[in-house]
């Protein structure tokens, strides 16, 4: 059973830009997803460890203070529980593709991204919108 099929799971978004984070929460909540947000890797790990059920996908920025995307990913893979959660890299730099490849992310979403593209990627991991609305 993937977390996405669990009726109450949500997404985790990790990005250090407050405006972007707020916007992602806005547009994904509009579609009925439950959204967890963290502004760096450390906060994201803390959020994951207290989140039950686990999120269906993690949308991960690379460049962040305190703990960056790579460090977060290796921490995540070290924890067998968390390792199963698919990760989508979210980057503005096409040159980061190699970096993301080394991190073994499941998917890559470029910045800027269209809302349709973003939603289709999220739907791939979390199922169609509305199903997971948690209030």
């Amino acid at each position, binding site marked *: 059973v993937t977390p996405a099929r669990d009726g109450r799971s949500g997404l985790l978004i990790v990005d250090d830009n407050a405006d972007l984070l707020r*916007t992602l929460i*806005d547009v994904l909540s509009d579609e009925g997803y439950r959204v967890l947000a963290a502004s760096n890797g450390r906060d994201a790990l803390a959020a994951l460890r207290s989140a039950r059920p686990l999120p269906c996908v993690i949308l991960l920025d690379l460049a962040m203070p305190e703990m960056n995307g790579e460090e977060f990913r290796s921490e995540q893979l070290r924890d067998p529980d968390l390792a199963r959660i698919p990760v989508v890299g979210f980057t503005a730099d096409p040159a980061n593709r190699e970096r993301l490849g080394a991190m073994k992310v499941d998917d890559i979403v470029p910045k*800027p*991204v269209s*809302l349709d593209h973003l939603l289709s990627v999220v739907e791939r991991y979390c199922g169609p919108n509305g199903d997971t609305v948690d209030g």
Partner: protein
Amino acid sequence: VTADSATTEKVWLAERQIALVRLFVVVANTLVYLFLMEKAGTVPGLAYAIIVVAFLYTAWVLRAEPYRRYAFLASSYFTSAGDTLLLIAWIYATGARSSPFYLLLYISISAVAFRYGVRETVAAAVLYAASYLALLVALGQVAGHVAEIVVRLAYVPLIALLSALMSREILRQTRSRVEIAERLSRETRVAERRSRFLADATAILTRSLDWEEISARVARLIVPTLGDNCVVDLVTSDGGLRRMAEASADPGKEALLRELRAFPMNEAEGSPTRRALATGQTVFIPNFDEASLRSLDRNDAYGRIVRAIAPTSSVSIPLISRARTLGVLTYGMDASGRRHDPADLALAEELARHAALAIDNARLYRDAQEAITSRDRFISIASHELKTPLTTLRLQAEGLLRQMGPSRGALDPAAQARRLTTIVAQTARLDELVSQMLDVSRISAGRLDLNLQPIDLGAVTAEVVARFEDQLSRAAASVSVSVAGAPVVGCWDPMRVDQIVTNLVGNAIKYGAGRPIEVAVSAGEGRARLVVRDQGIGIDREQQGRLFHRFERLVGKDAPGGIGLGLWITRQFVEAMAGTISVESDLGRGSTFVVELPIARAGVT
């Protein structure tokens, strides 16, 4: 030694030729005499004996190489004495006073005058005249012929004198002709060598665009052609000197020269290298004595190495290109004791010019490469930085559009307003980024025009801080502004001052970890002072030096957004208004930025 033996060789060859000529003359005279007399029977037997003796004598001169067996002078007297004996005997055999062969005396004295110096010629003249007179006196042929005999004898020194003068003149002319020819050929050789050397040097030097390699090649060109040892020092970006290359004809000394690299260059004030650098002129020390050695002394270890190399002379030539001194080429002699001839010095200076050009080219190439890399990096960073607000903008706008579609519940006005505000904030951020990029390109192109007018620094600061109110409340931070004493008014560019304060306060909020920020404005000693102090993450001491450089976002690639240009732009603005900016910071304990602007500039517009 070589020249002397060559001279001896020439003299000896001449002597052999003269011996042959002498033999020819004796034989020819004999035949003439026999022919004229038409009475072979009357020739005395002694004459035939003398012809035989002359043959033997000549054979002896030809075979025995007297110039190798006797000293030069002894030999000359010996041959003169031999000649005299032969001549007098011949004259006696052919009739003494009535012999026509007294003329042989003149030929012989002429030969002596040509071959030898004054003393030998005088000796030979006395010998000939005395022997001839003695013969005639002994035979009792003087009486009644005194006048004739005196004339014959007088001709001997006269011909000797004329021959000596002629020989001297011929010698002088020959010598000067030889000298001119030798000088010309030497000069041609030197010129050829120079031009070949320079052509090779240019080919070698222009083959590289790496100044370290060029320096090494220069050193290799100098040694051993122009000097026994050579070092090349180049001026570094901070104005110091750095040893780039060393070479020595002696591998052991080359290793010693390399050891000198361990000593910092900037201590050697007053050294020839330093003097060449300061004056832009060649410093030539033909005799490297104890005082010159001491001028290099920096400490005992250094002195020991220099004394082990034992230089005897040194030439320090500044490497100048486009009126800038790029470094110094120093070379010299040691144990070989060779001298520097002026042509070699000129050649070394020419080489230094070529080397400076090659080094300058390498530098220009490096600068151009760096400018290209830096621009590429700037474009790359800037475009990534633009993408974040664009992402927000696009998602927010598309999200709102989607909400306006059918089968969607309308958003409440407050949520709509908040989301539209986010969109507006993104356009502001984009505007800021684009302005920064324009500032950078303007500063890089040197087109930073200032619009100076009297402004109140305290008022501008208060205005900027007020503009941050929203951001401050979101960051839950506070900024206190204090102005000491009277308003601080100076003549500055209001827009740039606004940007300076905005950048510093913005940074303090961004990196201030939400703790209180203090901004203070004061004036003193003709300068306005703006201090922005935060208690945030701080800056590593090591990194503080690079802080105001382009693209230095110190916290690294994962720090809060920004192109890393803010502080660089700030410094450019501050410096454009003749001010200074500095930072004091400790990691984890916050940073204090201090900007000082001259108030006295008020008069300048």
